[in-house]
């Protein structure tokens, strides 16, 4: 290595290797000379020197390691010192302009906070694995059915055995069915708990162990095995105070179960299950008391290590085809096996993605806004930076300084955002499907924090680096010269205005996109709330109850109970009518369709209908405000007549052109007289069209499950109390649960959409405000830069109107171009939100026009300030400034 080359290297920092070589070789050479001077031959001297010095290579290695360590340590120290200095300086600068800083931080906190909050929901829904071991191997299987003990119908569904037969695809298969039972512990009043019947491999499939005791043993899943349960941590604490519960007895609907274990506190799958009961297969009808009408079984599986979801789906398809031929309406192969997480997320996927995209757009607008502000401030700072350059600051150093300032702004914004997001997440939980939110509740955890930090970093790079580079390229002479004259050179001014203008156009177009999205959602919500549910929910309260089969074994006993409760209710002041029904509208239950045919043409397939089968007492239609033509259902004591009340849809399907009242219909083999026709009710959700409905008298077969409805003139709390009192007075051991006003019941079905809509509306409003600020900032900056030009114009006779028109025209042009681009983009993108809309076209002209109009008004308002300032320009002062 030549000396010169080394010197070159040293220019870039200490040359560790060169220094060590220099030092050691100097020593060895001098030592050799020393021996030569003692009379040794050069060769001998070299050997002697080597011996006296010892292992050169070893010494060199040790020095090398030492020096390298030291060098990097000192570099780190220097960097930290510089950074600390930059930070101190940045802090000073931000404090020097508190209003500017506070505004920028607020804007960033809004943008970052929205993203943090939405990310926590998206993370839960799509990214974060479910809280189970190797959760990515867990899938759900469609098209399976649990075997029923007395099944006589043809077997057309595969069973779990078919899947476990080949363990190279499905390592474990299990099923569960969620329901509810009344829990009695130690003579207290019964309490409704969420239970799940689970099959033998359920806990193994999820890879979960009991925290205390054990999960059920194989023989406890066998037919006639000892009845056992596993309880949740919550039940353990609540009912048993956390004491030893293993082998104690738990009573569910009057039947005793031995507790064998307690699950960990974080486990409540499915949903928020509190008690897990082993299910023997094939199951008997005795488990039905936990469910309404049908067993809501879900099948899950842990895939074998090598199997993919697609392979599993193919395999499931093969199994399915063994049992029946596939018809067009059946599940496509791809839906047979799906990741469990995707199944739990269900149909909320689109809305979450749209929310995420909207939050990202909002952040972009915030970035553009901050960038705009920083750019306009960069002009004012040019002189300060020029002085620093003169004082010897390198371009790198100045760039770094500015980047540190941006980082500080973004970091402060992010810190506020995280605090705010902690609260926002609670609201956001409503956008998640409940069965997922329960399994893995969203929150501000390490992952979310990491995301926020990344976003803050990316944000500060986006809004900070461009101004930083621009500023660091400061032309000394020009900056110093023009600093006194209140602005940069003409060329730079033009470039700055163009940059600011482009940013405003971008902001406005993004804001219009968000506005259109929010507008479409608002229209949908409005349409939904205006949808006629078919009943009058006002002043109606409801509660649900479930009979324990042991205490109310026969229909007569239930009929007596209902009669007494309803009589008590009707006698209560403030309540005008009361009734019982097997399933309330909007509760998403009782969706069993029965095939109904007109008795006068039983073979006419065009006149067949599916009737949703419901049981009700007389007075139900009156209580719910459903119009009735003909007769009401017979009283509870009357069991003699085979009658039915049908809704308009079903009546129209059966007798398209004749009056249905008085005619007979066929329910399977059974002939029934239609005594009344009622209006259609939206049974599941407001945004689903009503199906055929078939009401049968409750007296025929009082259900184990029923809801009681009462209408009156009293206040809802008083009416609810009366409802509870009526049930309690009749039988204190029957708990009434899910008590609510009918309006609340409807609201529950609307809530996710409402939350979505409100969030989008919030984003849209923020976007508009930010865009307005952007317009304001750019115009103000423009006026400031053009003071001289305006001054000249005024001196040449321009009127105030001319001057303000100049400014307003510029603002309107920017907003107009932005709005146009935004409308076009929204037009292209709106089809992605189609599935989220209700009764609104994704290209609803009213929404598009409204968004553009709102923005135009706001942009116009934003031009007033700068326009006023422009008209205030005094030609004398400006010209003298030059």
């Amino acid at each position, binding site marked *: 290595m030549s000396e010169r080359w080394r010197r070159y290297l040293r220019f870039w920092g200490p040359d560790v290797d060169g*220094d060590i070589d*220099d*030092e*050691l070789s*100097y*020593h060895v050479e*001098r*030592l050799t000379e*020393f021996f030569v001077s003692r009379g040794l031959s050069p060769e001998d001297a070299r050997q*002697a020197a080597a*011996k*006296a*010095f*010892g*292992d*050169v290579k*070893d*010494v060199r290695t*040790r*020095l090398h390691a*030492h*020096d390298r360590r*030291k060098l990097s340590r000192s570099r780190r120290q220097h960097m930290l010192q510089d950074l600390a200095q930059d930070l101190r300086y940045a802090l000073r600068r931000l404090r020097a302009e508190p209003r500017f800083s506070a505004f920028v931080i607020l804007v960033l906190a809004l943008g970052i906070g929205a993203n943090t909050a939405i990310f926590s929901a998206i993370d839960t829904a799509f990214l974060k694995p479910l809280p189970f071991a190797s959760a990515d191997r867990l899938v759900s299987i469609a098209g399976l059915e649990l075997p029923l003990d007395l099944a006589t119908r043809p077997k057309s569904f595969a069973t779990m055995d078919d899947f476990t037969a080949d363990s190279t695809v499905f390592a474990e298969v299990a099923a569960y069915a969620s329901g509810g039972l009344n829990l009695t512990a130690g003579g207290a009043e019964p309490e409704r708990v969420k239970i799940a019947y689970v099959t033998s491999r359920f806990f193994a499939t999820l890879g979960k162990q009991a925290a205390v005791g054990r999960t059920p043993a194989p023989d406890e899943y066998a037919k006639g095995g000892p009845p056992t349960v596993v309880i949740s941590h919550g039940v353990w604490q609540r009912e048993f105070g956390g004491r030893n519960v293993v082998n104690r007895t738990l009573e569910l609907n009057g039947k005793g179960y031995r507790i064998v274990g307690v699950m960990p506190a974080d486990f409540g799958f499915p949903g928020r299950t509190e008690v897990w009961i082993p299910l023997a297969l094939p199951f008997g009808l005795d488990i039905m008391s936990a469910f309404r009408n049908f067993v809501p079984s879900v099948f899950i599986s842990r895939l074998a290590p090598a199997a993919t979801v697609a392979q599993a789906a193919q395999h499931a398809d093969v199994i399915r085809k063994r049992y029946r031929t596939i018809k067009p309406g059946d599940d496509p192969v791809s839906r047979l096996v799906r990741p469990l997480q995707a199944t739990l997320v269900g149909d909320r996927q689109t809305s979450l993605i749209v929310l995420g995209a909207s939050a990202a757009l909002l952040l972009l607008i915030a970035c553009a806004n901050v960038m705009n502000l920083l750019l306009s401030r960069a002009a004012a700072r040019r002189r300060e930076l020029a002085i620093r350059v003169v004082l010897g600051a390198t371009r790198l150093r100045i760039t770094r300084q500015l980047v540190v300032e941006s980082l500080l702004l973004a970091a402060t914004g992010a810190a506020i955002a995280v605090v705010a997001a902690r609260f926002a997440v609670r609201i956001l939980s409503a956008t998640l499907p409940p069965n997922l939110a329960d399994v893995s509740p969203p929150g501000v955890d390490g992952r979310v924090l990491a995301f926020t930090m990344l976003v803050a970093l990316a944000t500060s790079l986006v809004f900070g680096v461009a101004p930083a580079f621009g500023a660091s390229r400061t032309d000394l002479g020009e900056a110093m010269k023009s600093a006194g004259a209140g602005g940069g050179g003409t060329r730079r001014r033009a470039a700055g205005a163009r940059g600011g203008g482009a940013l405003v156009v971008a902001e406005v177009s993004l804001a219009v996109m968000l506005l259109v999205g929010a507008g479409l959602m608002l229209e949908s919500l409005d349409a939904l709330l205006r949808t006629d549910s078919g009943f009058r929910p006002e002043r109606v309260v409801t509660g649900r109850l479930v009979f324990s089969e042991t205490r109310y074994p026969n229909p007569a006993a239930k009929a007596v109970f209902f009669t007494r409760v309803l009589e008590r209710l009707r006698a209560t002041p403030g309540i005008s009518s009361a009734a019982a029904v097997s399933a309330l509208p909007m509760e998403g239950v009782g969706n069993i369709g029965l095939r109904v045919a007109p008795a006068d043409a039983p073979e006419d397939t065009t006149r067949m209908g599916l009737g949703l089968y419901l049981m009700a007492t007389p007075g139900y239609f009156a209580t719910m405000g459903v119009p009735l033509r003909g007769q009401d259902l017979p009283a509870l004591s009357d069991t003699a007549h085979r009658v039915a009340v049908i809704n308009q849809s079903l009546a129209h399907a059966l007798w398209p052109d004749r009056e249905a009242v008085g005619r007979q219909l066929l329910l399977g083999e059974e002939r029934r007289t239609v005594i009344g026709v009622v209006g259609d009710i939206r049974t599941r959700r407001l945004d689903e069209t009503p199906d055929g409905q078939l009401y049968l008298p409750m007296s025929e077969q009082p259900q184990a499950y029923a809801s009681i409805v009462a209408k009156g003139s009293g206040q809802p709390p008083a009416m609810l109390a009366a409802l509870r009192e009526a049930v309690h007075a009749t039988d204190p051991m029957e708990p009434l649960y899910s008590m609510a006003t009918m309006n609340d019941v409807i609201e529950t079905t609307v809530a996710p959409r409402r939350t979505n809509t409100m969030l989008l509306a919030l984003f849209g409003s923020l976007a508009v405000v930010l865009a307005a600020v952007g317009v304001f900032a750019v115009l103000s900056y423009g006026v400031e830069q053009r003071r001289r030009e305006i001054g000249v114009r005024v001196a040449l006779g321009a009127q105030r109107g001319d001057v303000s028109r100049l400014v307003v025209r510029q603002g309107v042009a920017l907003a107009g171009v932005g709005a146009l681009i935004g409308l076009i983009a929204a037009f292209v993108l709106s089809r992605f939100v189609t599935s989220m809309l209700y009764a609104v076209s994704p290209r609803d002209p009213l929404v598009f026009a409204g968004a553009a109009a709102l923005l135009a008004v706001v942009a116009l308002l934003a031009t007033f300030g700068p326009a006023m300032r422009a008209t205030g320009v005094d030609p004398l002062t400006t010209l003298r400034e030059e």
Partner: protein
Amino acid sequence: MARDKGDLLQGTLTLLILKALVGQDLHGYSIARWIEDVTKQALAIEEGSLYPALRRLEDRGLVTSKWTLSDTGRRVRVYALSRTGRAELSTEATAWMQLSRAVTLVLRAEPSLV
């Protein structure tokens, strides 16, 4: 040449280097020569081991170093005693002499070997 009279104790080498630098700034080679001359070649050190020892002393702030040009125009690294180094030397030297005196007393005790 009496160059391999066994290992020097670690602390001893430190002491020797610090002593060598009292009143003069030296590069590694000169430190080795100084020690050899002063001890009349009675103590031999493996000269390469000077350098790691010097690095340790520098890390502890007992010596400082800088690059200068030698008489022959070579880049050489010259070591100097720092203020703390001087203090360290006097403490260490006192301790050493006390120990040495004590050991001498033991060895001179009757029956004396010396």
